[in-house]
């Protein structure tokens, strides 16, 4: 894990996160996002630089299919940004446009403050990417695969290539298997090698499409802790995943796409909070409890066996509890069930997560 000293040959500069709220960058933050701009204040660091900003980004494929429709994405610097959506919702098309692989039909995309795909040569050396799973040369060893990818990077110093490759392999736990041909790798090992390729250089942005795909639970934990570690170094991580709890565990921010449109984006805590939890009262006197809750201003009151659930009223819930007890309702349990990201997702899309768009 020791990064060898590069003796000044590796002229890596990096915007200090503390000064990233430079006016020129702040101006590029997409102004009109569907959900709250306070999203930017939620994360560690407190700068409001934007690492990815798209404006009316649209991709229509030749068949006429609208894959991405007027996307206004804004990824704050230093965030771990979860990119969510059902299969076919346009996530991968968006990522490919951000990486300059696909030309947008209309609209603009800026990555690290520069337009894509025009500034790809300047931007991409600072971006590590894992797009739609790893792709490897099966007849080359894991190490030789990384050497090849590194040779394709114009800014990579050939003198430090071998040490950087060794460090990247070590970082994803592949050091022992680095001499094996890549075709003999398991899916999880290929995934790790793909991640290693994204970590060949210090990056300012990591774009990871389903990084834990094919990994066992232990591998998933390792990758999650790796992501947290990278994020704490100041790297912005843009992470697409279909695992909602994964997003909830590692992401500070999230965006949700469905059918090519951005439905919402913001801090994860706020997204979940946006869908309010439900008030749950456990009591044998359900009918009385329901009446009292309605009097107290609770909406959507539902009685199920010994439980009454409702949209919590605006007032202090302690007062609601007093009112219940005063009315002679025997309360066994009283509390608010916090909404999960999945609840938020279902509320936003009106459908389950695995529905294809």
């Amino acid at each position, binding site marked *: 894990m020791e990064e060898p000293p590069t003796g000044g040959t590796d002229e*890596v*500069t990096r915007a200090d996160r503390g000064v990233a709220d*430079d006016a020129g960058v702040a101006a590029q933050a997409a102004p009109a996002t569907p959900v709250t701009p306070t999203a930017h204040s939620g994360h560690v660091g407190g700068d409001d630089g934007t690492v990815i900003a798209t404006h009316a980004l649209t991709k229509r494929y030749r068949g006429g299919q609208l894959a991405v429709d007027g996307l206004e994405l804004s990824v704050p610097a230093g965030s771990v940004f979860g990119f969510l959506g059902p299969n076919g919702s346009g996530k991968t098309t968006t990522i490919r446009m951000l990486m300059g*692989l696909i030309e947008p039909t209309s609209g603009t995309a800026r990555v690290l*403050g520069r337009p894509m795909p025009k500034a790809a040569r300047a931007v991409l050396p600072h971006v590590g990417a894992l797009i739609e799973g790893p792709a490897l040369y099966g007849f080359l060893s894991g190490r030789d695969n990384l050497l090849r990818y590194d040779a394709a990077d*114009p800014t990579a110093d050939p003198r430090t290539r071998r040490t950087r490759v060794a460090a990247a392999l070590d970082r994803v736990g592949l050091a022992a298997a680095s001499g094996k041909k890549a075709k003999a790798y398991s899916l999880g090992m290929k995934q790790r090698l793909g991640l290693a390729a994204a970590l060949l250089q210090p990056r300012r942005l990591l774009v990871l499409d389903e990084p834990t795909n094919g990994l066992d639970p232990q591998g998933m934990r390792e990758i999650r802790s790796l992501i947290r570690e990278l994020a704490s170094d100041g790297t912005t991580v843009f992470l697409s995943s279909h695992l909602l709890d994964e997003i909830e565990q590692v992401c500070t921010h999230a965006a949700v796409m469905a059918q090519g449109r951005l439905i919402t984006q913001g801090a994860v805590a706020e997204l979940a909070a946006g869908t309010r939890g439900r008030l749950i009262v456990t009591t044998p006197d359900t009918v009385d409890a329901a009446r009292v809750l309605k009097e107290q201003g609770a909406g959507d009151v539902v009685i199920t066996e010994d439980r009454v659930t409702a949209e919590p009223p605006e007032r202090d819930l302690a007062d609601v509890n007093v009112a219940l007890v005063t009315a002679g309702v025997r309360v066994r349990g009283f509390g608010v069930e916090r909404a999960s990201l999945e609840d938020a997702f279902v509320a936003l899309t009106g459908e389950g997560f695995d529905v294809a768009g």
Partner: protein
Amino acid sequence: MSRAEVIQQGGGQIGGGIARARKPSPLWTFGLFRSELLTTFRRWRTLALLAVLAAVPILVGIAVKIETGDGSGGGGGPQGGGPAFISQITNNGLFLVFTALAATLPFFLPMAIGVIAGDAIAGEANSGTLRYLLVAPAGRTRLLLTKYATTMTFCLVATLVVAVSALTVGALLFPLGDLTTISGTRISFAEGLGRALLIALVVAASLIGVAALGLFVSTLTNSGIAAMATTVGLLITVQILDQIPQLHALQPYFFSHYWLSFADLMREPVYWDDLIKNLGIQGLYAAVFGSAAWARFTAKDITA
């Protein structure tokens, strides 16, 4: 630990940081080319193609040896429309080089080039490695140029493999010495060797057109196999059309039409007309299909 140490604080702003960071090394393109060469020549497929090419002179040499073993001297004369070299092999092993090149140029060599060129972009797209090369970022124009340079290198290596294999077999099975040119004059063995090398270079250059064509086809599809099959199919089609007398007016524009002109290097003095026409046609194909490949590849949506 690790990364933070390399990261130097600097570049006051996000946009400004980029402009100053990590200057590409001027020798970087060479590094990419080297990596491309290593990758190509470490494939079993490439080595198998070279092995087949090396086997052709061995088979021809053994066949001629057996054919003439009964002392009848001189083989069956010119074969398959090729130059009249084969009958001279028994007198001088060096002629096996010319015979082998004449035998492989119409099909084996261009087929091998078609496989390598057709696979160049499409094969990478097929395996998904193309997207990672492009986000590295290799740059589309540079990657295409590197691929073309690698294919050309393969042309040269393939031709030299045939020539060296033929020279070795010829030296083992037949006598070496002064030789007679097509024009009937005698030249020394050393000069004969020089001509053989020159011929190998001209044969390699004759493949420039096929290589450009194959590379263009390779940018059209995401299937390496489809690109290889299309290129080899085009090669066969053009070879057949070149034999149809009614297409006489078109034939000078076929990339294979002047291929066998390399035999003119064995005349004294050398007859340059067709040789120059051949190189001109190859240049034309390289320009036309190279530009087409560039236009296609730099504007292509990489969805594989």
